[in-house]
């Protein structure tokens, strides 16, 4: 009985020799590898996102320029004239007698002169 007990305890004491250093190393390598893979994939995702946004920015800029160009065309004096004519609107400058002119720089002196009277 005693003998049996001794044998059993000896068996229980037998351990597979696995160096902790190696285990740590393997864990480290695995973590490092996984991090590397994760970072790589993150970089790729970001790269794709940047590429997509570059394209969007280019397209938006292109559209903006094209719209500016179209707007500028609409504002061409000849086109404005044509648009007025299309709507049967006639615009002409007022007669000289119908213009009120106020010169900012000299208004004060005119007012001062008037009030001194």
């Amino acid at each position, binding site marked *: 009985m005693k003998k049996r007990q001794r044998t059993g305890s000896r068996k229980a004491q037998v351990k597979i020799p696995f160096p902790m250093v190696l285990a740590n190393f393997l864990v480290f390598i695995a973590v490092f590898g996984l991090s590397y893979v994760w970072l790589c994939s993150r970089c790729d995702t970001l790269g794709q996102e940047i*590429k997509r946004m570059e394209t969007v920015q280019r397209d938006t800029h292109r559209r903006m320029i094209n719209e500016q160009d*179209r707007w500028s065309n609409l504002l061409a*004096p000849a086109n404005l*004239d044509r648009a007025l004519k299309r709507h049967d609107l006639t615009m002409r400058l007022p007669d*000289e007698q*119908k213009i009120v*002119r106020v*010169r900012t720089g000299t208004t004060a002196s005119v007012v001062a*002169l008037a009030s001194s009277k």
Partner: protein
Amino acid sequence: MKYKGRTILTSAVLAAVFIGLGVRLAFLHLRPSPGTLERIESGRHLQQETRGPRGRVLDRNGNMLAVDIAAKHICVDPKFILANGNITNVCNALSGKLGMNRSEVWNLLNQPDRRYIRIQKFTREEMAEPLRAMNLKGVIFEDVPIRDYPKGVLGAHVIGYANYEGVGSAGVEQRMNTSLQGVAGLRISQKDGRRHEIYSRRTVDIDPQSGADVYLTIDQQIQHFAEKALDNLCEKFAPNAAWAIVQNVRTGEILAMASLPTYNPNRFSTAPPEWMRNRAVNYTYEPGSTFKAMIVASALDSGAVRASDIFDCENGSWFYAGKILHDSHPEGLLSVADIIQKSSNIGAAKVALKLGEQKVYQSMRAFGFGDRTGIALPGEDAGIVWKTDRWSKLSISRIAMGHEVLVTSLQMLNAISAIANDGVRMRPQIIRKVVNSDGEIISEPQPEVLSRPIRAETAKEMRRLLERVTQPGGTATKAALAGYRVGGKTGTAQKVNLVEGGYYSSKFVSSFVGFLPVDNPAISIIVVADEPKQSGHYGGTVCAPYFKEIADQTVRYLRIPPEGFLTEYVKDIETGGSGEENGFD
């Protein structure tokens, strides 16, 4: 086992294949030959050069006159389309959306050996977009910039155009090409098996830089006034060509420069070269009577004559140096002031004789005739002013009336501007500023004095004399403008007959050059018509009314007040009267 032999054989073959592939893979990865390495690298290498967009051309207020916009080359892959049996569909779409002939498109598509054909170049986005939305297989859209001129013909001769390679080929586009053209960008990277860029392998990434924006001194509204007036002139008098310039007399800035016939720079390839000619700077002509203003100004300045001096105008016919000189309207005794007002050839010739050959020559040069003004436009002509040693005895009498010299209308305008600007001749400017893509001003030309041909007092006296030209009794009453005092001079020069010699009796260059307001001139304008064919040919008839048309709109647009309006108002307040009497309600 029943299939043991076959199994072994298959396994052996598979093993051999995999071993072969493995060996090849090992060789490729471990010790690739330099040739292989180069082939792999070149297959993955991606180098893109992106053209920087050309800078914009804008008017003085920032209105866009020229800009690079995005367009498309529409291309097809006929082999792919035919292989997919899609030719009818593609043909219908292309011919329908692009407005092309169906059979022409069919012939282009029906080429099974071709992989790439450009169906239409430089297609605008608004035309290409519906086609792209159809998502047709085998139709390719290539991005390409195109130079667009949103105002069409407005200022075409000043702006010029850039060709399909993006190189300025006329006008400011040509002259300022170095500033306008962008700097190309560069991207070096690698691509994957699907030919997509691998962003993380991008090693060089230099963004393209757009060219600098060029702001002109032109004002689109004044330009439009000038072009509209020329349209009206051409409609009434049917000349070969007509042109006009508006200048700020104080700074020399050109506010408008129009020339007819004109062209649309968006379709420059279809315009005849003659239409593209900017006659304001590269057409030389004998100026005729407008030249008298400079001769008389110089004579007054040198003290050779006074405005009140009387000259005998020989009743319109004077024999000098073996030839008879005529006046179109016979006059007897005229003062110098009247010689200008009536535009007497004989009177002007006698004034020039009093001034003397050397001084006439010197004054012409001092007013800038015979030299380019240096405006930033290509092809400016210097005109011709012969040295006195090449003059005949007759020359001085003919030069006084604007013959035997060739000038450009810009020179003539600049000379009259010198009189308007107290005798100071400024360099005509067309470029206001150049601004780079970061918004920094890289060049901003300042007003530059070219010469002082006459004293300020003489200039003032000349303005008074030139004002009489537009008053009753003068040759250009049609240039008079209500509310403003206008000074100027008409010119009606017979054209030189280059074939037979002498002058044509019925071909004229009519012109009017003037400025306003006389007391404090702000703008000067020249209007010239080459060979008016109907309704008259005198400068006072053909050009003066259109000078008035341009001036009338320009003074109001620029808010140039009529002369003396404030003085009147102040006087009114001083006398206790009401402003309403003077129209200031």
